[in-house]
């Protein structure tokens, strides 16, 4: 095989590996942001439920401990998730050794490791998507409860009946599909071949059905995600109108 072709394959494997690392890091950032928002919304809800809406009614030490527990769990989760890449033998590094004429590189094994790495990545991504939906649903649930309490406190209008009952069903469905993907990725069969191109092609083909299943799962979860996001926007819009209305009344009275 010409050098240029090998370089191209190595470059493409390197880019794919970098994308895996980047997407997982970005995914962790999104999870961290969702956790912070959920934490703030829950503190806000506890404040709204507290007598006299006093900031002093929140036990700061207790909240700090809670924040440290959440933060610690997230750090542990991130360390385990990203730390597993320390044990990777990325395909591009193996290919560089092959191109340099290095002995002792079992290409079939390297490709199998690559297939396993990609399937684990798909499983991680499916789990991330499921987690975002769950966290976002938690934010919206607490936000909605906060809004109802706000409306009750300001006695401005009767809060409409809760429409959150359907969410647990959607979440269970999303989590179930995510588990299917994760389980399937963990039980993926092994494969191998002779030439580099054919092996890469087969490695790619071996992942196709899993990748397509992940894609379908992402889009199904996307429907839930959109519903939750628009619900969050709706709650904020209603809250804004409620507070703005009360403030207008206040100005009129003055």
């Amino acid at each position, binding site marked *: 095989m010409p050098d240029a072709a090998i370089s191209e394959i190595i470059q493409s494997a390197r880019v794919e590996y970098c994308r895996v690392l980047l997407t997982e890091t970005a995914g962790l950032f999104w999870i961290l942001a969702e956790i912070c928002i959920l934490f703030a919304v829950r503190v806000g809800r506890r404040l709204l439920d507290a007598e006299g809406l006093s900031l002093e009614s929140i036990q700061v030490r207790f909240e700090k401990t809670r924040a440290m527990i959440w933060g610690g769990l997230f750090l542990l989760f991130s360390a385990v998730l990203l730390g597993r890449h320390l044990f990777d033998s990325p395909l591009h590094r193996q290919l560089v050794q092959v191109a340099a004429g290095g002995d002792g590189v079992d290409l079939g094994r390297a490709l199998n490791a690559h297939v396993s790495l990609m399937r684990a990545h798909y499983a991680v991504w499916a789990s991330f998507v499921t987690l975002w939906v769950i966290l976002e649903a938690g934010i919206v649930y607490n936000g909605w409860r906060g809004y109802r309490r706000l409306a009750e406190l300001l006695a401005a209008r009767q809060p409409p009946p809760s429409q959150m009952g359907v969410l647990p069903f959607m979440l269970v469905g999303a989590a179930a599909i995510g588990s299917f993907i994760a389980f399937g990725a963990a039980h993926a069969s092994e494969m191998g071949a002779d030439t580099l191109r054919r092996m890469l092609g087969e490695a790619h083909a071996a992942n196709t059905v899993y990748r397509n299943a992940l*894609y379908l799962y992402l889009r199904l979860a996307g429907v839930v995600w959109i519903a939750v996001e628009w619900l969050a926007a709706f709650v904020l819009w209603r809250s*804004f109108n409620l507070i703005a209305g009360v403030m207008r009344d206040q100005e009129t009275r003055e």
Partner: protein
Amino acid sequence: MIQAVIMWMGSRFSPEQYIFWTRIQCTAWTLADILIVYYLLRIGDLARSFLKVERHKVCYVIWLATLPLSATIPFLTRGYYIFAVELLVTLPHFLIILYALAADGRYFFLTLSFLVRSTNSAK
């Protein structure tokens, strides 16, 4: 059974369909994100104006800067471009949300406690 479900799912979806639906879905949730950030800043501004504190400016500028990028999402043709643009849009959005929650939380509850007291005394 689980393997069969994955195979079934995998055989009924393709990368082309994925890109098509990703563009539509990504546009839908990015629009919701834009509204969420906007109304969060507006609520913060309500409390700030009530307490005569300077309103948000920089956050609105950053929020506005994400709009042209968001508008490109329906026209992107590759999954990775959509991911990159989504990252560039959601990163500032999340940072604005976190800043607004941290900076405006106290103003919001001070304003609210005043409004609740005045609503109750007006009854």
